[in-house]
């Protein structure tokens, strides 16, 4: 329905294709993009950066969050700073990143990771602080102690519902920062492809990239995180699995 309206509107209004592509142009460009490997290449490069940045931000974010939850002094100082930093769109750091690292992968990965790290650390902090104290006590009385075993066996699983939400939101933030970063800094990727499309006046290519970004984002969120989260919530007894 949307597709028909799109093609009809294109013909009736008579847009020129350098402003907005027709359905057929888009499909054709999509096809040739895949055949020539241009699109796949870009997707691969973007995802690679995304995963590196994401892994970095998850680890740093979780360590930070743990410190916020455990040490009040850290929470009052750095914790406050992080909340302030979280309100800054990570793309705002790109000029700094370019000065520090140059026009390359590192800059893009840096700002992508930055966007996700703050969110993740705050989610971790909330998650750990919301673990009912009885679980901590029960673990201690069974001999868990207060160190590493407490962290891996109680704090992480106990905070998991919050961590999951943190991961989802961080993922969305990382995506945004990634595309924005690629638009400006160099390196083959979806953002760069958008930029190329603009340079060549190839609106069909640009639209394809936008569609790919939306589809990848939705797919990853819906089929990866959402499914995982729902299953966890059922397992934790926070949501019933039978539809009433």
């Amino acid at each position, binding site marked *: 329905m949307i597709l028909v309206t799109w093609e009809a509107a294109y013909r009736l209004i008579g847009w020129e294709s350098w402003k907005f592509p027709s359905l057929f142009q888009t499909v054709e460009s999509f096809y040739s993009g895949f055949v020539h490997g241009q699109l796949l290449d870009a997707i691969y490069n973007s995802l690679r950066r995304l995963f590196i940045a994401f892994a970095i931000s998850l680890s740093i974010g979780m360590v930070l969050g743990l410190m916020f939850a455990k040490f009040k002094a850290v929470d009052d100082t750095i914790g406050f700073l992080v909340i302030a930093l979280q309100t800054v769109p990570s793309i705002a750091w790109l000029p700094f990143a370019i000065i520090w690292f140059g026009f390359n992968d590192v800059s893009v990965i840096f700002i992508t990771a930055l966007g996700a790290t703050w969110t993740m650390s705050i989610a971790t902090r909330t998650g750990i602080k919301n673990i009912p104290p009885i679980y901590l006590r*029960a673990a201690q009385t069974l001999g868990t102690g207060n160190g590493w075993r407490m962290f891996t066996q109680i704090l992480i699983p106990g905070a998991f519902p919050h961590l999951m939400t943190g991961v989802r939101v961080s993922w969305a933030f990382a995506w945004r920062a990634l595309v924005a970063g690629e638009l400006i800094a160099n390196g083959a990727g979806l953002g760069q492809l958008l930029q190329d499309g603009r340079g060549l006046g190839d609106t069909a290519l640009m639209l394809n990239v936008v569609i790919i970004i939306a589809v990848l984002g939705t797919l990853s969120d819906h089929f990866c995180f959402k499914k995982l989260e729902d299953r966890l919530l059922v397992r*934790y*007894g926070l949501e019933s699995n039978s539809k009433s």
Partner: protein
Amino acid sequence: MGFNTMIVIDHVSKQFQQRDGNRFKAIDDVSITIKEGEFVSLLGPSGCGKSTILNLIAGFDRQYEGTIGVNGESIKTPGPDRVVVFQEHGLFPWLTVLENVAFGLKQQGVGKKERLERAREQIRYVHLGKFADRYPHELSGGMKQRAAIARALIMNPKILLMDEPFAALDEQTRLVLHKELEDIWMRTGKTILFITHNIREAVMLSDRVLVMSTRPGTIKKEFTVQAARPRDSADPLIHHVERSVMDCLADEMEKVIKEEMDDDNYSFKKNDFHNRDISDMGGGI
């Protein structure tokens, strides 16, 4: 049953800092000695500091005056030699019953195969065999509490600290669990410190009942229950002790109620039924 002392609480006091800055005495100069293999209840109205005492023995709270010794040693950290069973079971929701019960063994570095085997056995022991692979939220309240007891017993602790473990259960389930706990106690000879506000529960289960008074919490009186095991709820001796405990607690309740209702004339204890004209059966003729 040995005659060694297991828990010694010697002139222990504990204060809390209140929000308005005043210090609030939760327990004051409490001394308790519990022998090995003894089943002792701490009984008192809510807020009398009975859970505070348990938390001190468990090692959750280390700021107090006086000395506490467990098996001849002072307490440093919480540990599996005196496992706590909580009112709200405290099972980890992300683990199955089996994994929950095996949790303590995992902390001790027992291999996976062995710990799961031993956990299964322990779960059968508390009659939960069919539910070993369920998650805690899939169990009823009584089953959760059984699983929590299994999780404590598998550590083979010398002492079980039970903090109102059956308070959230319905009466029927509670009666069943009383029987099971007594059975476990008779078979294993554990030292049990049992916190409750239920008079009947305390008298039915314990060798000794320590009645606490409130604000500040002190041990008011001690009752020894010498009824035969396994206990029979119809045993007249049980009823007799229950009655005496009730009388002892009545003073306490009156104190609490007066404080909470802010009414000095209210009396819980005084039953003036026989003194009223309307119920005069002709005794004055």
